[in-house]
Every structure is written in C-alpha cells, then in structure tokens.
C-alpha cells in the first residue's frame, strides 16, 4: 500500500476515532526523549521522558516501593532498572551517576543495555501506531565538525527500531526540525539551532530547504562534565545545579558561576563554528535580507540563555545579516514538534 492510499484509508477505516491527522514526531535526544502528536483540540500533545536509567539491587521490597511510588522499572539481567526522570532523581539522592543510552548525540557504544532501555521508553512515549505503518519522523543529528562520528549507524538503528514498532520511520535532521517548528513566520528561512544534551545542531534553510547542516559535539553534557570536573562532584549533581532554575547572567554562587562560564563558552563555540562555515564559502547560501535565528533544545532552557546568546553574537562579526534571535517558547519539545510538522506535511 502506498503512503498516499494509507492516508486516504485512515478516515474511512477509523472514522471519528481518528479525526485528528496521523503522523507522529519523535525527538531522540541524548538527555531527553519526546514524542509529539496532534490532538483533537487543534493543538499537540507532547510526552517527554529523561533518556536515562539506573540499576539497583532487585528485591521484592524495592519493586513494591517503586510500584507504589509510580516509578517505572524493568527487571533486566537480574537487576531492577529504574527508567527515566526517576532514575535521574534517584541518582542524585544516592550520589551515583545515571546510565545513559546515548552519548554525544548518538547511541552510546559503551552502554550495552542501551537498546532495550531506549526501546522501552520510546514504546511508552509513542504508543501503538493508530494505523499500520503510520508515519513517524524522528530526528537525527548532522555529522559533527569536531569529532568523527557514525550518524549512519545511529540513523539506521532507530529507523529499524521505529519500523519494528509498526510505524514507517523517516529521519529528519534535528535542527531542520527546529526550523519547521519555529520559523514559519519567516517562511522557514533562517538558522535553526538545537542545543541538546550531547550536541549542538545547526541547520541553515532557505524556504524550508536545508542548505547546510552540521553539529558540534558539545551540549549540556559537556557543560555538566566540565562543571563536575572543576567542582569535584558527580555529573548528575552538576546537571542538577544547571537545571534547578539558575540565571546564567547573574550567578549566585561558585557553582552557578561555573555553569555560567561553560554556558557562555558553549554558545561562543557554536557561533564561531557557524561563522567559520559561512566564511569558508563552500556551498554556502547568500542572504540579502536579515534572517532569523531560532534556538531550541533542553540546554537552552536555562535562565538568561538567549540574552547571553545575543551578547556573544554581538561580539563576533557575523558574516550575514541577522534579524531576530529568539528561543522557542517550548524549547524542550520544539524538535519533537518540528518532527510532527514534517510527518504531517510529509504525507499531505
């Protein structure tokens, strides 16, 4: 059955049950996984879960407690594995590091239990397809400028995973998804930036067509790693400091100061790389009118992010005219939303 006929059949087969458009968006992020779907109220519903897990000794009491506390767990290889946000919270309580299925934006080669854990979380977020072979657009990072990474393997792996769940998987560049979600007013012309946990992705588009996309292997985890190193604490503790609602323009303690320093460094690094790519002149588009820059991703959620971004932007002599610089109002879920836009338009 072709995609087109599948789309046509859905209304006949499911009637009012599927009055909303089909297609789902999935953000496969290093730190968070998010799925987006259109709801029957004209909006979208997003489900988010931390992409992390933590194994604890398995016993009847622990299982019972976790169930009572509504903490998701799975028994794997004789161990009790706590999944998602609860794993992050437990790790902080016990002073341990969470186990992470992904690192630097890609599936982690060092985590042997990554695939089954991610499959469980993604299954929970996506749910069952509403029709067999429903389109699901998931994001993949662009090749990195600063490390040699294997995006093809990562993409193929998740394509297979999503297909195996009964969907028809389609990959879309992560920052391209940001453009789809945030730059409608600019006719999808501009720069989409996704500041994720493992990477920062950039995509320059002209009327929705990607002209250039790349990534740098620095993100929220890079900040956590460096903050943990200078403060001498676990990374999960550093992440907790970062996410407890600080403002990087006005750090209140030595710990917050460290976070602010590395945030500024990350932003500057990303901007310098975009600038360098524009100045390299290879296959670069030329814009005569100012273009907008949209920032998204969980790492951009910190207070004062966009102001610091503008500060750093003002310091460099950017080679093209830039209009608005803004952060998505739904920064954590913008990529999933962009994937959903791609899914909705992909079959129309």
């Amino acid at each position, binding site marked *: 059955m072709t995609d087109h006929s599948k789309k046509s059949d859905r209304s006949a087969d499911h009637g009012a049950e599927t009055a909303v458009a089909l297609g789902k968006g999935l953000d496969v992020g290093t730190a968070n996984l998010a799925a*987006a779907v*259109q*709801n029957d109220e*004209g*909006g*979208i*519903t*997003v*489900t*988010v*879960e931390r992409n992390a897990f933590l194994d604890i000794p398995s016993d009847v009491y622990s*299982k019972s407690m*976790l*169930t009572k506390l*509504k*903490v*998701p*767990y*799975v*028994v*794997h290889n004789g161990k009790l594995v706590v*999944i998602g946000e609860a794993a992050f919270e437990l790790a902080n309580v016990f002073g341990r590091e969470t186990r992470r299925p992904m690192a630097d934006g890609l599936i982690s080669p060092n985590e042997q239990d990554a*695939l*089954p854990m991610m*499959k*469980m979380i993604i299954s*929970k*977020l996506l749910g069952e397809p509403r029709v067999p072979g429903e389109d699901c657009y998931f994001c993949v990072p662009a090749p990195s400028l600063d490390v040699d990474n294997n995006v093809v*393997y990562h993409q*193929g*792996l998740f*394509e*297979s*995973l999503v*297909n*195996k769940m009964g969907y028809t998987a389609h990959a879309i560049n992560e920052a391209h998804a940001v453009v*789809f*979600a945030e730059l*409608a007013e600019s*006719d*999808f012309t501009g720069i989409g930036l996704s500041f994720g946990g493992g990477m920062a992705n950039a995509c320059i588009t*002209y*009327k*929705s067509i990607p*002209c250039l996309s790349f990534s740098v292997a620095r993100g929220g985890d890079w900040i956590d790693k460096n903050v943990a190193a200078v403060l001498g604490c676990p990374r999960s503790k550093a992440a907790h400091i970062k996410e407890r609602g600080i403002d990087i323009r006005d750090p209140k303690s030595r710990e917050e100061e460290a976070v602010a320093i590395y945030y500024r460094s990350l932003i500057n690094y990303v901007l310098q790389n975009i600038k360098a790519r524009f100045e390299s002149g290879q*296959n670069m*588009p*030329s*814009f*005569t*009118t100012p273009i907008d820059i949209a920032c998204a991703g969980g790492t951009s959620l910190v207070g004062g992010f966009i102001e610091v971004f503008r500060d750093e932007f003002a310091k460099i002599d950017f080679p093209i005219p830039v209009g608005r610089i803004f952060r998505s*109002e*739904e920064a954590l*879920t913008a990529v999933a*939303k962009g994937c*959903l*836009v791609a899914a*909705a*338009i992909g079959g*129309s």
Partner: protein
Amino acid sequence: MESVNEIKEALSARSRTATLDELRSEGKKKVRLIRAEQVAAMVVEAVHAAIEQSGLIDPKEAERLVEKSRVEFRSILREREQEAQHAHDVEQKLATSETQLRELGARSQELSAALADTRVQLEAAGAESTRHRDEVIDTRAEVARCRSELEQAHGTIAELQEQVAQVQRTPAPVAAQGPGTDLLMSLVNEMASMKANLMNQQAQERAPAAATAGAEFSAAIDKLSGTLNDRLEKLGKKMGVSAAVDGDAVDFGGMFKDTGKLLESNMENIEVKQKAGGGIAANLARLKKLKGGG
C-alpha cells in the same frame, strides 16, 4: 472723487437696506432719495464753513491740507494693495509647493514599492543563482563520472568482443556446455546495437553539449549511463561475468532481537507525563503554501 466713495462707504455702513415691499409694509408709500455726491458736497461745504467760522486755518491752507491728506491716503492705499498682492502671490506659491510636495510623496511611495519588488526579485535571483551554481557543480561531477564509466564500458565491450570471438572460434563439442548459436548471434547483435547506441549518444553528447542547458545534458548523460549499465548488466549475466549488484539497505532489526522478549516491568501501569503544546496548523499552512498547495 475719493471723498464721494468714502461718503458712500460711510453711508452704507450706517444705513440699512430695505426692499420696497418692506417699506410698504412699514406704511411708507414715498421715500426721499439723495445722491452720495450731494451728501459729499454738503459735508465739504460744511467743513469749509466750519473752518472759515473758526478762523483757525486759512481756507487755502485747509484746501492744501486736504490735498496732502489725500495724497498720503493714496500712497498708503497703494502700499496696502501691494502688500495684499504680495500675500496673494505667496499664497499661490505655497499652494503650488504643496501640490508639488504631494506629487513627490506619491512618486516616492511608488519608487519605494518598486525598490522593494526589486529587492525581492534580487533575493530570489540570488537563491536561484546559488542553486544553479550547485547544479552546475553536480552536473560537472556527473559528467566526469559518466565519462569514466564510458571509458570502462569501452574496455568491457572490447573484452566481450574478444570473448565472443573466442567462442565463435572454438567449436562446441557438446551443446549443453557452451552457448548456442542463437545465443551467440543474439549477443553479437546486442553488442552491435549497444555499440551503435554508444557512438550515437557520444556524438550527441559532444555536439550539443555546449549549446544545451545543464539539465538536458545531465538527463542525456543519465540516460546514456542507464542504458549502458542495463545492457552491460544483461550481457554480463548472459555471459556469466556479471558484476556485483548493490546490496539491500542495511537492516538493523537484528540488533533488537534480544529486546523483544517479555521483561518484568511495571511500565504498563505508569502513565507518561503529557503536556499540551501550541498547534501546528499555521506551520502546515505556510509549508503547503511554499509547496504551492495553498
């Protein structure tokens, strides 16, 4: 004469106008009339009589003063008239300037609109130019690749011709062990046809290459490449010397074979946290418009 006019003005200012009907309604059947000149003469006569009776000024001196006053009055009147005329001229110039200003404003708006249109066109042309440049680069690479394939095809054809010649030279002891005569004839015909096509398409490639657009040239090269590949593949398979074929897309499904087994979990009983987000209708409408569907 001026004094008469002044008298007229004074009389007008101090009298009222009434129609005959109004006078009739007031009960007046007759009215007395007097000319303004007569009133003026009476006033002059009265003034002269008053001056003579006062004995202060000689009548001639009085006449001279009157004449002097008259001259001054005329001079002042002329000045006022000139000022009035000047004011009128300035007013007219101002009106003319305002008209010109309005015209210039309208023209400026037209030029601004034209400038905006030109900017949009330039922007579109810039993007189009970039796209064309990329296409030209891609086309050049494709042409180089096709040329390389052509050279390889020449070599393959020569080898195949040699193999066919060898087959033709070698007698077939057992029909089942070698290709039949029909097959050999078919192969020879196919190679001849392929060679003719190759030469023909090469000629087409060289002659109009400079004149035709990049897209047409690229299409011709693609067609040539496709034809060659198909024929060589067919021929190769018949001869048992087929090149390796492309593998299927890599399926990573096997990586999850261990993940399908049922694990003990409470995931089914845990509700995933959901939150509402802004709709995507506006984004979709814009995208459809860009795609030309809206």
